[in-house]
């Protein structure tokens, strides 16, 4: 079964096993790319809390993900980038895990996931940047967790892969990562 059919099936269960993130679309905005989240991540992102700082962080992340969904300009350095696995030499990217870096303000978070197909991203985990900065292994932990989430939902199916940015994002993406 294709990964898309599997994904849509997960989104269609009651309660959903995966949740589609659709930002507030106004006027002429529409869902030009797709973003699916684990229910835990989705609930965390959408639920208001008492802490104003945390509400701001969540809004910061929601609007950043919204840029992706609305088809606005993204790049493979600052907006999102492939995660480097330094446990192997030379550094390995074949795991197909990407991190998304929400802009503006602190505390900074990184969101980890993988492409299900071109223009459709599955967001699996999040981690604070401070925690990730402690050691390379923190990044590797997120890679492994993302792959575990993928395996849980998609079994032995492979994630989407490509050799250049436009294999992942069809339109409106700036290539600036020289590690390809």
């Amino acid at each position, binding site marked *: 079964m294709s990964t898309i059919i599997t994904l849509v099936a997960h989104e269609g269960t009651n309660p959903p096993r995966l949740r589609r993130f659709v*930002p*507030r679309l*106004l*006027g*002429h*905005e*529409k869902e*030009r790319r797709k973003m699916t989240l684990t229910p835990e991540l989705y609930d965390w992102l959408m639920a*208001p809390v008492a802490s104003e700082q945390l*509400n*701001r962080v*969540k*809004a*910061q992340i*929601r*609007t*950043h993900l*919204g*840029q992706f969904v*609305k*088809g*606005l*300009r993204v790049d493979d350095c*600052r907006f999102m980038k492939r995660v480097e696995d330094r446990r192997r030499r030379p550094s390995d990217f074949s795991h197909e895990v990407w991190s998304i870096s929400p*802009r*503006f*303000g602190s505390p900074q978070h990184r969101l980890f996931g993988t492409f299900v197909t071109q223009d459709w991203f599955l967001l699996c985990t999040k981690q604070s940047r401070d925690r990730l900065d402690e050691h390379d292994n923190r990044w590797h932990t997120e890679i492994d967790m993302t792959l575990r989430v993928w395996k849980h939902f998609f079994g032995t199916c492979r994630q989407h892969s490509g050799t250049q940015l436009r294999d992942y994002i069809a*339109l*409106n993406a700036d290539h600036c990562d020289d590690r390809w």
Partner: protein
Amino acid sequence: MIDGNNQTIDVIPDAVFWDDYYESLHIAHNALRDTFDKSGLNQDELASRCGVSKSYVSKRLNGEENLTIKTLARFGTGMSHRLVIMYQPYSEVGQTNFYYPTPLHVTTSAAYTMSITYSTSAGLEKNTSPKPANTSIELEKV
């Protein structure tokens, strides 16, 4: 919520305010990056012209720091562009998205969102939507 005339007023949730705030920051950041890319300047040159460090410029171009109107205007001056700020009705949001053809989806909300662009003496760049009456603010030249 009931106002002084006993009319019901919908209270906008905090989350909507925060989402719109960060949305406006993204719009400002995209406008800054687009204008910088077209300016032909590099970060060192923009920093020198604005009298700030390269790190200051880099952090803002990379979205690592919040943008203030003061910073946006200063960078605009450094790039020989005037910063123009206007409010846009929610119903027209996305109309100025120059990367995609305008879809047919139209809503009739009367609410407003904010749009930020840099302009040259030749007029507004990219923003081709009709300007809503009495909702634009143009900053004085720095």
